[in-house]
Protein backbone atom coordinates (compact mmCIF):
# COMPACT_ATOMS: atom_id res chain seq x y z
CA UNK A 1 0.00 0.00 0.00
CA UNK A 2 2.67 2.39 1.08
CA UNK A 3 4.65 1.82 -2.10
CA UNK A 4 1.69 2.55 -4.33
CA UNK A 5 1.26 6.01 -2.88
CA UNK A 6 4.99 6.54 -2.71
CA UNK A 7 5.38 5.86 -6.39
CA UNK A 8 3.34 8.94 -7.15
CA UNK A 9 5.66 11.07 -5.09
CA UNK A 10 7.95 11.91 -7.95
CA UNK A 11 5.10 12.16 -10.40
CA UNK A 12 4.51 15.28 -12.43
CA UNK A 13 0.78 15.10 -11.73
CA UNK A 14 0.61 17.49 -8.74
CA UNK A 15 2.58 20.11 -10.64
CA UNK A 16 0.19 19.94 -13.58
CA UNK A 17 -2.79 20.16 -11.23
CA UNK A 18 -1.39 23.14 -9.36
CA UNK A 19 -0.13 25.07 -12.35
CA UNK A 20 -3.33 26.78 -13.60
CA UNK A 21 -4.30 28.11 -10.17
CA UNK A 22 -0.78 29.21 -9.28
CA UNK A 23 -0.30 30.95 -12.63
CA UNK A 24 -3.47 32.93 -12.17
CA UNK A 25 -2.50 33.89 -8.62
CA UNK A 26 0.99 34.88 -9.74
CA UNK A 27 -0.25 37.16 -12.51
CA UNK A 28 -3.34 38.71 -10.94
CA UNK A 29 -2.59 38.60 -7.23
CA UNK A 30 1.13 38.66 -6.54
CA UNK A 31 2.53 40.45 -9.56
CA UNK A 32 0.26 43.52 -9.07
CA UNK A 33 2.13 44.29 -5.84
CA UNK A 34 5.43 44.47 -7.72
CA UNK A 35 3.84 46.21 -10.66
CA UNK A 36 2.50 48.95 -8.38
CA UNK A 37 5.89 49.37 -6.73
CA UNK A 38 7.58 49.62 -10.13
CA UNK A 39 5.01 52.09 -11.50
CA UNK A 40 5.30 54.30 -8.44
CA UNK A 41 8.66 55.60 -9.69
CA UNK A 42 7.17 56.75 -12.97
CA UNK A 43 5.02 59.52 -14.23
CA UNK A 44 2.41 57.57 -16.11
CA UNK A 45 -0.82 59.11 -17.34
CA UNK A 46 -3.74 56.95 -18.37
CA UNK A 47 -4.43 58.79 -21.60
CA UNK A 48 -0.86 59.40 -22.78
CA UNK A 49 1.32 56.59 -24.11
CA UNK A 50 4.64 55.71 -22.43
CA UNK A 51 5.99 56.76 -19.05
CA UNK A 52 8.89 58.78 -17.64
CA UNK A 53 11.07 57.87 -14.68
CA UNK A 54 10.75 60.46 -11.92
CA UNK A 55 12.37 58.65 -8.98
CA UNK A 56 10.67 59.49 -5.71
CA UNK A 57 8.67 62.30 -7.35
CA UNK A 58 5.30 60.69 -6.68
CA UNK A 59 6.14 60.02 -3.04
CA UNK A 60 7.37 63.58 -2.48
CA UNK A 61 4.24 64.93 -4.13
CA UNK A 62 2.04 62.82 -1.87
CA UNK A 63 3.64 63.78 1.40
CA UNK A 64 3.38 67.45 0.49
CA UNK A 65 -0.29 67.08 -0.36
CA UNK A 66 -2.61 68.14 2.47
CA UNK A 67 -5.40 66.03 0.93
CA UNK A 68 -3.24 62.90 1.31
CA UNK A 69 -2.46 63.68 4.95
CA UNK A 70 -6.17 64.25 5.51
CA UNK A 71 -6.99 60.91 3.87
CA UNK A 72 -4.60 59.14 6.26
CA UNK A 73 -6.35 60.70 9.23
CA UNK A 74 -9.82 59.86 7.88
CA UNK A 75 -8.72 56.29 7.14
CA UNK A 76 -7.54 55.77 10.72
CA UNK A 77 -10.89 56.99 12.07
CA UNK A 78 -12.96 55.05 9.54
CA UNK A 79 -11.03 51.81 9.94
CA UNK A 80 -10.71 52.15 13.72
CA UNK A 81 -14.43 52.80 14.17
CA UNK A 82 -15.53 50.11 11.73
CA UNK A 83 -13.22 47.41 13.06
CA UNK A 84 -13.98 48.09 16.71
CA UNK A 85 -17.74 48.01 16.15
CA UNK A 86 -17.70 45.00 13.82
CA UNK A 87 -15.50 43.07 16.21
CA UNK A 88 -17.62 43.82 19.28
CA UNK A 89 -20.97 43.38 17.55
CA UNK A 90 -19.81 40.11 15.99
CA UNK A 91 -18.66 38.84 19.37
CA UNK A 92 -21.85 39.88 21.17
CA UNK A 93 -24.26 38.55 18.55
CA UNK A 94 -22.31 35.30 18.20
CA UNK A 95 -22.43 34.68 21.95
CA UNK A 96 -26.15 35.39 21.98
CA UNK A 97 -26.67 32.95 19.11
CA UNK A 98 -24.79 30.32 21.10
CA UNK A 99 -27.03 30.62 24.16
CA UNK A 100 -28.35 27.21 25.16
CA UNK A 101 -32.04 26.42 24.45
CA UNK A 102 -32.36 29.32 22.01
CA UNK A 103 -35.12 28.71 19.50
CA UNK A 104 -35.17 30.17 15.99
CA UNK A 105 -31.39 30.45 15.88
CA UNK A 106 -31.28 30.02 12.10
CA UNK A 107 -33.92 32.69 11.53
CA UNK A 108 -32.13 35.22 13.73
CA UNK A 109 -28.83 34.49 12.02
CA UNK A 110 -30.33 34.76 8.54
CA UNK A 111 -31.94 38.12 9.21
CA UNK A 112 -28.85 39.56 10.88
CA UNK A 113 -26.53 38.65 8.01
CA UNK A 114 -29.06 39.48 5.32
CA UNK A 115 -27.38 42.82 4.45
CA UNK A 116 -24.19 41.00 3.49
CA UNK A 117 -25.92 39.43 0.48
CA UNK A 118 -26.47 42.86 -1.05
CA UNK A 119 -23.98 44.66 -3.22
CA UNK A 120 -22.18 47.55 -1.52
CA UNK A 121 -23.77 49.63 -4.26
CA UNK A 122 -27.33 48.57 -3.36
CA UNK A 123 -26.57 48.98 0.34
CA UNK A 124 -25.40 52.52 -0.30
CA UNK A 125 -28.37 53.40 -2.49
CA UNK A 126 -30.81 52.19 0.18
CA UNK A 127 -29.12 54.24 2.88
CA UNK A 128 -28.72 57.22 0.57
CA UNK A 129 -32.50 57.41 0.23
CA UNK A 130 -33.21 56.59 3.87
CA UNK A 131 -30.86 59.37 4.97
CA UNK A 132 -32.15 61.92 2.48
CA UNK A 133 -32.58 65.25 4.32
CA UNK A 134 -35.89 66.13 2.59
CA UNK A 135 -37.74 62.85 2.15
CA UNK A 136 -35.71 60.22 3.98
CA UNK A 137 -37.47 57.87 6.34
CA UNK A 138 -34.90 58.42 9.08
CA UNK A 139 -35.66 62.10 9.33
CA UNK A 140 -39.32 61.16 9.33
CA UNK A 141 -38.82 58.83 12.28
CA UNK A 142 -36.90 61.39 14.31
CA UNK A 143 -39.54 64.01 13.45
CA UNK A 144 -42.08 61.80 15.25
CA UNK A 145 -40.05 62.49 18.37
CA UNK A 146 -40.06 66.20 17.65
CA UNK A 147 -36.51 66.44 16.29
CA UNK A 148 -35.54 68.76 13.45
CA UNK A 149 -34.49 67.18 10.13
CA UNK A 150 -30.76 66.47 9.95
CA UNK A 151 -28.55 66.60 6.87
CA UNK A 152 -26.84 63.33 7.79
CA UNK A 153 -24.37 62.99 4.95
CA UNK A 154 -23.23 66.56 5.44
CA UNK A 155 -22.93 67.04 9.18
CA UNK A 156 -22.44 63.41 10.26
CA UNK A 157 -20.78 61.98 7.17
CA UNK A 158 -18.01 59.95 8.80
CA UNK A 159 -20.10 58.36 11.59
CA UNK A 160 -22.82 57.56 9.08
CA UNK A 161 -20.51 55.79 6.60
CA UNK A 162 -18.99 53.85 9.50
CA UNK A 163 -22.43 52.73 10.67
CA UNK A 164 -23.53 51.71 7.18
CA UNK A 165 -20.29 49.77 6.76
CA UNK A 166 -20.86 48.03 10.10
CA UNK A 167 -24.48 47.27 9.17
CA UNK A 168 -23.23 45.61 6.00
CA UNK A 169 -20.03 43.98 7.17
CA UNK A 170 -20.50 42.57 10.69
CA UNK A 171 -21.41 39.21 9.12
CA UNK A 172 -17.83 38.08 8.75
CA UNK A 173 -16.80 38.43 12.39
CA UNK A 174 -20.17 37.12 13.53
CA UNK A 175 -19.86 33.88 11.53
CA UNK A 176 -16.23 33.37 12.48
CA UNK A 177 -16.93 33.83 16.18
CA UNK A 178 -20.03 31.68 16.08
CA UNK A 179 -18.30 28.73 14.47
CA UNK A 180 -15.33 29.09 16.81
CA UNK A 181 -17.64 29.15 19.84
CA UNK A 182 -19.36 25.99 18.68
CA UNK A 183 -15.97 24.30 18.88
CA UNK A 184 -15.59 25.00 22.60
CA UNK A 185 -16.46 21.83 24.54
CA UNK A 186 -19.74 22.22 26.40
CA UNK A 187 -18.30 20.27 29.34
CA UNK A 188 -16.03 23.23 30.19
CA UNK A 189 -19.06 25.44 30.77
CA UNK A 190 -20.88 22.77 32.74
CA UNK A 191 -17.88 22.24 35.01
CA UNK A 192 -17.60 26.00 35.56
CA UNK A 193 -21.29 26.22 36.33
CA UNK A 194 -20.98 23.49 38.93
CA UNK A 195 -18.11 25.46 40.47
CA UNK A 196 -20.42 28.46 40.71
CA UNK A 197 -19.00 30.66 37.95
CA UNK A 198 -21.38 33.37 36.72
CA UNK A 199 -22.31 33.83 33.06
CA UNK A 200 -19.93 36.76 32.89
CA UNK A 201 -17.06 34.82 34.49
CA UNK A 202 -17.59 31.91 32.15
CA UNK A 203 -17.40 34.31 29.20
CA UNK A 204 -14.18 35.93 30.47
CA UNK A 205 -12.36 32.77 31.57
CA UNK A 206 -13.56 30.16 29.07
CA UNK A 207 -14.94 31.80 25.92
CA UNK A 208 -12.46 34.63 25.42
CA UNK A 209 -9.22 32.61 25.83
CA UNK A 210 -10.59 29.98 23.42
CA UNK A 211 -11.21 32.71 20.86
CA UNK A 212 -7.70 34.11 20.85
CA UNK A 213 -6.61 32.68 17.53
CA UNK A 214 -9.87 33.45 15.79
CA UNK A 215 -9.87 37.02 17.17
CA UNK A 216 -6.46 37.63 15.68
CA UNK A 217 -7.64 36.28 12.35
CA UNK A 218 -10.86 38.30 12.41
CA UNK A 219 -9.01 41.48 13.31
CA UNK A 220 -6.50 41.04 10.51
CA UNK A 221 -9.16 40.20 7.95
CA UNK A 222 -11.63 42.98 8.77
CA UNK A 223 -8.93 45.61 9.22
CA UNK A 224 -7.35 44.85 5.86
CA UNK A 225 -10.73 44.60 4.18
CA UNK A 226 -11.83 47.96 5.56
CA UNK A 227 -8.62 49.73 4.63
CA UNK A 228 -8.85 48.50 1.09
CA UNK A 229 -12.52 48.86 0.30
CA UNK A 230 -14.37 52.04 -0.46
CA UNK A 231 -17.52 50.96 -2.31
CA UNK A 232 -19.89 52.36 0.32
CA UNK A 233 -18.08 55.69 0.53
CA UNK A 234 -17.83 55.82 -3.26
CA UNK A 235 -21.62 55.93 -3.54
CA UNK A 236 -22.70 57.66 -0.32
CA UNK A 237 -20.31 60.62 -0.17
CA UNK A 238 -17.61 60.14 -2.83
CA UNK A 239 -15.17 61.23 -0.12
CA UNK A 240 -16.94 64.48 0.79
CA UNK A 241 -18.03 66.77 2.18
CA UNK A 242 -14.69 68.61 1.96
CA UNK A 243 -12.71 65.40 2.36
CA UNK A 244 -14.47 64.35 5.57
CA UNK A 245 -14.82 60.76 4.34
CA UNK A 246 -11.98 60.72 1.82
CA UNK A 247 -10.43 57.41 2.89
CA UNK A 248 -7.19 56.37 1.24
CA UNK A 249 -8.87 53.95 -1.19
CA UNK A 250 -11.18 56.68 -2.42
CA UNK A 251 -8.27 59.09 -2.68
CA UNK A 252 -6.34 56.50 -4.71
CA UNK A 253 -9.21 55.82 -7.07
CA UNK A 254 -9.79 59.51 -7.70
CA UNK A 255 -6.16 60.16 -8.46
CA UNK A 256 -5.79 57.17 -10.76
CA UNK A 257 -9.10 57.19 -12.59
CA UNK A 258 -10.55 60.70 -12.20
CA UNK A 259 -7.28 62.62 -12.60
CA UNK A 260 -5.96 59.79 -14.82
CA UNK A 261 -2.61 59.73 -12.99
CA UNK A 262 -1.79 56.01 -12.88
CA UNK A 263 1.72 56.61 -11.51
CA UNK A 264 0.38 58.47 -8.51
CA UNK A 265 -2.38 55.90 -8.08
CA UNK A 266 0.23 53.11 -8.05
CA UNK A 267 2.22 55.01 -5.44
CA UNK A 268 -0.81 55.17 -3.16
CA UNK A 269 -1.40 51.43 -3.84
CA UNK A 270 2.16 50.72 -2.75
CA UNK A 271 1.67 52.69 0.44
CA UNK A 272 -1.55 50.80 1.15
CA UNK A 273 0.26 47.47 0.62
CA UNK A 274 2.97 48.48 3.07
CA UNK A 275 0.39 49.63 5.62
CA UNK A 276 -1.32 46.23 5.27
CA UNK A 277 1.88 44.36 6.05
CA UNK A 278 2.73 46.62 8.98
CA UNK A 279 -0.73 46.27 10.50
CA UNK A 280 -0.68 42.47 10.13
CA UNK A 281 2.69 42.34 11.88
CA UNK A 282 1.52 44.63 14.67
CA UNK A 283 -1.51 42.43 15.30
CA UNK A 284 0.54 39.23 15.32
CA UNK A 285 3.03 40.82 17.67
CA UNK A 286 0.31 42.17 19.90
CA UNK A 287 -1.30 38.77 20.27
CA UNK A 288 2.06 37.01 20.53
CA UNK A 289 3.57 34.88 17.81
CA UNK A 290 2.44 31.73 19.62
CA UNK A 291 -1.21 32.54 18.81
CA UNK A 292 -0.50 31.74 15.18
CA UNK A 293 1.00 28.36 15.95
CA UNK A 294 -1.37 27.02 18.56
CA UNK A 295 -4.37 26.68 16.33
CA UNK A 296 -6.43 24.06 18.05
Amino acid at each position, binding site marked *: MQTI*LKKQKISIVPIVLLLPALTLLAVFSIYPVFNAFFLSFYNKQMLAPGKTFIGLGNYIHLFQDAAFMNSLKVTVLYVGGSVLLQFLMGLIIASLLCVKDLKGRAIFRT*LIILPYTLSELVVSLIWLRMLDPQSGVINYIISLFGAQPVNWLFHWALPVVILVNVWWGTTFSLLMFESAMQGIPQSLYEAAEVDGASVFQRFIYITLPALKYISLLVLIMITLYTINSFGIIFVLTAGGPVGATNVIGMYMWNNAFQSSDLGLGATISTIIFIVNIVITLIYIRGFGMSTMERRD
Partner: protein
Amino acid sequence: MKTKLTVTYVILSVFALGGLLPVLWMFVMSLQTPRALNSFPTLNWFKDFEFNNYQIALNQGGIYQGLINSSIITGGTLIISVTFATLAAYALANFEFKGKALLLIGILMTQLIPGMAAIVPLFDILKSLHLINTYTGLILIFAARTIPLNIWIMHGFFKELPAELREAAIIDGCSVYTTFTRIILPLALPGIGAACMFTFMQTWIDFIMPLTTLFDQNKFPFTVMLYKYVGDPIMGTNYGVVFASAVIGTLPTLLMFVFFQRFFVKGLTSGAVKG
Protein backbone atom coordinates in the same frame (compact mmCIF):
# COMPACT_ATOMS: atom_id res chain seq x y z
CA MET B 1 -32.32 31.37 33.58
CA LYS B 2 -35.70 32.32 32.12
CA THR B 3 -34.94 36.05 32.16
CA LYS B 4 -31.59 35.45 30.55
CA LEU B 5 -33.30 33.77 27.61
CA THR B 6 -35.86 36.56 27.36
CA VAL B 7 -33.14 39.21 27.25
CA THR B 8 -31.36 37.20 24.56
CA TYR B 9 -34.53 37.06 22.47
CA VAL B 10 -35.11 40.78 22.82
CA ILE B 11 -31.57 41.78 21.83
CA LEU B 12 -31.45 39.33 18.94
CA SER B 13 -34.81 40.58 17.70
CA VAL B 14 -33.52 44.15 17.68
CA PHE B 15 -30.51 43.13 15.61
CA ALA B 16 -32.64 40.97 13.32
CA LEU B 17 -35.04 43.84 12.68
CA GLY B 18 -32.06 46.11 12.09
CA GLY B 19 -30.85 43.76 9.39
CA LEU B 20 -34.25 43.18 7.86
CA LEU B 21 -35.98 46.57 7.84
CA PRO B 22 -33.67 48.46 5.43
CA VAL B 23 -33.85 45.50 3.03
CA LEU B 24 -37.66 45.56 3.25
CA TRP B 25 -37.54 49.30 2.76
CA MET B 26 -35.83 48.70 -0.57
CA PHE B 27 -38.91 46.71 -1.66
CA VAL B 28 -41.20 49.49 -0.45
CA MET B 29 -39.19 52.12 -2.34
CA SER B 30 -39.24 49.99 -5.48
CA LEU B 31 -43.04 50.37 -5.56
CA GLN B 32 -43.20 54.15 -5.36
CA THR B 33 -43.76 56.89 -7.92
CA PRO B 34 -41.10 59.62 -8.08
CA ARG B 35 -43.60 62.04 -6.55
CA ALA B 36 -44.30 59.80 -3.58
CA LEU B 37 -40.60 59.17 -2.99
CA ASN B 38 -39.94 62.89 -2.72
CA SER B 39 -42.90 63.64 -0.52
CA PHE B 40 -42.82 64.12 3.20
CA PRO B 41 -44.13 62.75 5.52
CA THR B 42 -43.24 59.29 4.41
CA LEU B 43 -46.61 57.86 5.43
CA ASN B 44 -48.06 59.02 2.12
CA TRP B 45 -46.03 56.26 0.53
CA PHE B 46 -48.36 53.53 1.55
CA LYS B 47 -51.42 55.03 -0.20
CA ASP B 48 -50.76 53.65 -3.66
CA PHE B 49 -48.14 51.40 -5.16
CA GLU B 50 -46.57 51.63 -8.58
CA PHE B 51 -46.01 48.09 -9.86
CA ASN B 52 -45.07 49.44 -13.28
CA ASN B 53 -41.60 50.23 -11.98
CA TYR B 54 -40.57 46.64 -12.51
CA GLN B 55 -41.78 46.69 -16.08
CA ILE B 56 -40.04 49.97 -16.79
CA ALA B 57 -36.83 48.63 -15.24
CA LEU B 58 -36.89 45.55 -17.44
CA ASN B 59 -37.98 47.22 -20.66
CA GLN B 60 -36.36 50.64 -20.66
CA GLY B 61 -33.67 50.53 -18.07
CA GLY B 62 -31.45 47.97 -19.76
CA ILE B 63 -31.31 45.94 -16.56
CA TYR B 64 -32.11 42.94 -18.73
CA GLN B 65 -28.84 43.33 -20.63
CA GLY B 66 -27.13 43.97 -17.31
CA LEU B 67 -28.34 40.67 -15.90
CA ILE B 68 -27.09 38.80 -18.97
CA ASN B 69 -23.70 40.47 -18.67
CA SER B 70 -23.55 39.71 -14.95
CA SER B 71 -24.35 36.09 -15.74
CA ILE B 72 -21.54 35.86 -18.30
CA ILE B 73 -19.00 37.41 -15.92
CA THR B 74 -20.11 35.37 -12.92
CA GLY B 75 -20.45 32.15 -14.93
CA GLY B 76 -16.98 32.51 -16.42
CA THR B 77 -15.49 33.24 -13.02
CA LEU B 78 -17.26 30.26 -11.48
CA ILE B 79 -15.98 27.81 -14.08
CA ILE B 80 -12.37 29.00 -14.01
CA SER B 81 -12.08 29.61 -10.29
CA VAL B 82 -13.76 26.43 -9.08
CA THR B 83 -12.06 24.18 -11.66
CA PHE B 84 -8.58 25.53 -11.02
CA ALA B 85 -9.09 25.52 -7.27
CA THR B 86 -10.45 21.96 -7.25
CA LEU B 87 -7.46 20.64 -9.22
CA ALA B 88 -4.98 22.49 -7.02
CA ALA B 89 -6.70 21.40 -3.81
CA TYR B 90 -6.69 17.78 -4.99
CA ALA B 91 -2.95 17.95 -5.56
CA LEU B 92 -2.42 19.53 -2.14
CA ALA B 93 -4.62 17.02 -0.34
CA ASN B 94 -3.44 13.81 -1.97
CA PHE B 95 0.16 14.14 -3.08
CA GLU B 96 3.28 14.48 -1.02
CA PHE B 97 5.91 16.92 -2.19
CA LYS B 98 8.44 19.27 -0.69
CA GLY B 99 7.24 22.64 0.58
CA LYS B 100 3.58 21.65 0.53
CA ALA B 101 2.71 23.16 3.91
CA LEU B 102 4.45 26.38 2.94
CA LEU B 103 2.58 26.51 -0.37
CA LEU B 104 -0.74 26.08 1.41
CA ILE B 105 0.03 28.95 3.79
CA GLY B 106 1.31 31.01 0.87
CA ILE B 107 -1.94 30.53 -1.01
CA LEU B 108 -3.93 31.66 1.99
CA MET B 109 -1.62 34.66 2.41
CA THR B 110 -2.49 35.90 -1.10
CA GLN B 111 -5.92 36.36 0.42
CA LEU B 112 -4.36 39.19 2.41
CA ILE B 113 -3.27 41.03 -0.72
CA PRO B 114 -6.06 43.53 -1.07
CA GLY B 115 -8.16 43.39 -4.21
CA MET B 116 -9.22 47.00 -4.19
CA ALA B 117 -5.85 48.57 -3.50
CA ALA B 118 -4.53 46.52 -6.42
CA ILE B 119 -7.01 48.13 -8.78
CA VAL B 120 -4.40 50.49 -10.27
CA PRO B 121 -1.77 47.82 -11.09
CA LEU B 122 -4.53 45.46 -12.25
CA PHE B 123 -5.76 48.11 -14.64
CA ASP B 124 -2.21 48.53 -15.91
CA ILE B 125 -1.73 44.75 -16.32
CA LEU B 126 -5.01 44.37 -18.19
CA LYS B 127 -3.94 47.18 -20.48
CA SER B 128 -0.64 45.55 -21.35
CA LEU B 129 -2.38 42.20 -21.92
CA HIS B 130 -4.95 43.97 -24.14
CA LEU B 131 -7.67 42.71 -21.84
CA ILE B 132 -9.05 46.05 -20.79
CA ASN B 133 -12.77 46.46 -21.54
CA THR B 134 -13.17 42.68 -21.95
CA TYR B 135 -15.09 40.09 -19.98
CA THR B 136 -11.99 37.88 -20.03
CA GLY B 137 -9.88 40.40 -18.11
CA LEU B 138 -12.54 40.90 -15.47
CA ILE B 139 -13.15 37.15 -15.16
CA LEU B 140 -9.45 36.44 -14.64
CA ILE B 141 -9.24 39.10 -11.91
CA PHE B 142 -12.31 37.71 -10.13
CA ALA B 143 -11.04 34.15 -10.51
CA ALA B 144 -7.68 35.04 -8.98
CA ARG B 145 -9.48 36.78 -6.14
CA THR B 146 -11.66 33.78 -5.27
CA ILE B 147 -9.22 30.92 -5.93
CA PRO B 148 -7.37 31.00 -2.57
CA LEU B 149 -10.47 30.52 -0.47
CA ASN B 150 -11.87 27.96 -2.91
CA ILE B 151 -8.63 25.97 -2.59
CA TRP B 152 -9.08 26.00 1.18
CA ILE B 153 -12.71 24.94 0.95
CA MET B 154 -11.91 22.07 -1.44
CA HIS B 155 -8.78 21.09 0.45
CA GLY B 156 -10.89 20.65 3.58
CA PHE B 157 -13.34 18.40 1.74
CA PHE B 158 -10.67 16.26 0.08
CA LYS B 159 -8.90 15.81 3.40
CA GLU B 160 -12.06 14.39 4.93
CA LEU B 161 -12.27 11.62 2.33
CA PRO B 162 -10.55 8.43 3.59
CA ALA B 163 -7.23 7.65 1.90
CA GLU B 164 -8.29 4.00 1.47
CA LEU B 165 -10.69 5.12 -1.25
CA ARG B 166 -7.86 6.23 -3.47
CA GLU B 167 -5.69 3.27 -2.62
CA ALA B 168 -8.47 0.84 -3.47
CA ALA B 169 -9.09 2.59 -6.76
CA ILE B 170 -5.42 2.41 -7.70
CA ILE B 171 -5.26 -1.28 -6.83
CA ASP B 172 -8.32 -1.88 -8.99
CA GLY B 173 -6.38 -0.37 -11.85
CA CYS B 174 -7.89 3.13 -12.01
CA SER B 175 -5.62 5.78 -13.46
CA VAL B 176 -5.08 9.04 -11.59
CA TYR B 177 -7.60 10.61 -13.93
CA THR B 178 -10.38 8.04 -13.48
CA THR B 179 -9.80 7.90 -9.73
CA PHE B 180 -10.38 11.62 -9.64
CA THR B 181 -13.41 11.85 -11.93
CA ARG B 182 -15.18 8.62 -10.94
CA ILE B 183 -14.44 8.30 -7.23
CA ILE B 184 -13.29 11.55 -5.69
CA LEU B 185 -15.25 14.19 -7.57
CA PRO B 186 -18.75 12.81 -6.89
CA LEU B 187 -17.93 12.64 -3.19
CA ALA B 188 -16.63 16.20 -3.17
CA LEU B 189 -19.78 17.68 -4.69
CA PRO B 190 -20.90 19.42 -1.46
CA GLY B 191 -17.52 21.16 -1.36
CA ILE B 192 -17.86 22.21 -4.97
CA GLY B 193 -21.31 23.54 -4.14
CA ALA B 194 -19.88 25.63 -1.31
CA ALA B 195 -17.10 26.96 -3.52
CA CYS B 196 -19.55 27.81 -6.32
CA MET B 197 -21.89 29.62 -4.00
CA PHE B 198 -19.12 31.58 -2.34
CA THR B 199 -17.67 32.59 -5.72
CA PHE B 200 -21.08 33.50 -7.09
CA MET B 201 -21.89 35.80 -4.17
CA GLN B 202 -18.51 37.51 -4.31
CA THR B 203 -18.63 38.14 -8.04
CA TRP B 204 -22.26 38.97 -8.72
CA ILE B 205 -22.36 41.95 -6.35
CA ASP B 206 -19.02 43.59 -7.18
CA PHE B 207 -19.19 46.96 -8.86
CA ILE B 208 -16.03 49.05 -8.60
CA MET B 209 -13.85 46.59 -10.54
CA PRO B 210 -16.20 46.40 -13.57
CA LEU B 211 -16.87 50.12 -13.32
CA THR B 212 -13.16 50.76 -13.69
CA THR B 213 -12.16 48.16 -16.27
CA LEU B 214 -15.19 48.18 -18.61
CA PHE B 215 -15.98 51.19 -20.81
CA ASP B 216 -18.47 49.69 -23.19
CA GLN B 217 -22.01 50.29 -21.97
CA ASN B 218 -23.21 47.05 -23.59
CA LYS B 219 -20.87 45.06 -21.35
CA PHE B 220 -21.84 46.53 -17.99
CA PRO B 221 -23.04 44.08 -15.34
CA PHE B 222 -26.25 45.03 -13.57
CA THR B 223 -24.41 46.75 -10.71
CA VAL B 224 -22.62 49.18 -13.03
CA MET B 225 -25.85 49.74 -14.97
CA LEU B 226 -27.55 50.61 -11.73
CA TYR B 227 -24.76 52.97 -10.76
CA LYS B 228 -24.97 54.69 -14.14
CA TYR B 229 -28.76 55.17 -13.80
CA VAL B 230 -28.35 57.05 -10.58
CA GLY B 231 -26.11 59.52 -12.37
CA ASP B 232 -28.44 59.66 -15.37
CA PRO B 233 -30.48 62.88 -15.54
CA ILE B 234 -33.71 61.13 -16.56
CA MET B 235 -33.59 57.66 -15.01
CA GLY B 236 -31.68 58.84 -11.95
CA THR B 237 -34.53 60.91 -10.60
CA ASN B 238 -36.88 57.95 -10.74
CA TYR B 239 -35.68 56.09 -7.69
CA GLY B 240 -38.66 53.75 -7.82
CA VAL B 241 -37.28 52.27 -11.04
CA VAL B 242 -33.74 52.31 -9.63
CA PHE B 243 -34.83 50.21 -6.66
CA ALA B 244 -37.00 47.93 -8.80
CA SER B 245 -33.82 47.21 -10.77
CA ALA B 246 -31.88 46.76 -7.55
CA VAL B 247 -34.44 44.24 -6.31
CA ILE B 248 -34.33 42.28 -9.57
CA GLY B 249 -30.53 42.22 -9.55
CA THR B 250 -30.36 41.29 -5.88
CA LEU B 251 -32.87 38.43 -5.98
CA PRO B 252 -30.38 35.80 -7.22
CA THR B 253 -27.95 36.33 -4.34
CA LEU B 254 -30.71 36.89 -1.81
CA LEU B 255 -32.60 33.69 -2.69
CA MET B 256 -29.45 31.65 -3.02
CA PHE B 257 -28.34 32.83 0.39
CA VAL B 258 -31.65 32.11 2.09
CA PHE B 259 -31.80 28.56 0.70
CA PHE B 260 -28.14 27.55 0.76
CA GLN B 261 -26.98 29.54 3.76
CA ARG B 262 -25.02 26.58 5.12
CA PHE B 263 -22.72 26.56 2.08
CA PHE B 264 -22.09 30.26 2.34
CA VAL B 265 -21.21 30.07 6.02
CA LYS B 266 -18.94 27.13 5.32
CA GLY B 267 -17.22 29.10 2.57
CA LEU B 268 -16.61 32.15 4.72
CA THR B 269 -15.30 30.29 7.73
CA SER B 270 -13.37 27.45 6.11
CA GLY B 271 -9.63 27.47 6.26
CA ALA B 272 -9.86 29.72 9.27
CA VAL B 273 -11.66 27.76 11.90
CA LYS B 274 -10.67 24.32 10.80
CA GLY B 275 -7.04 23.90 9.80
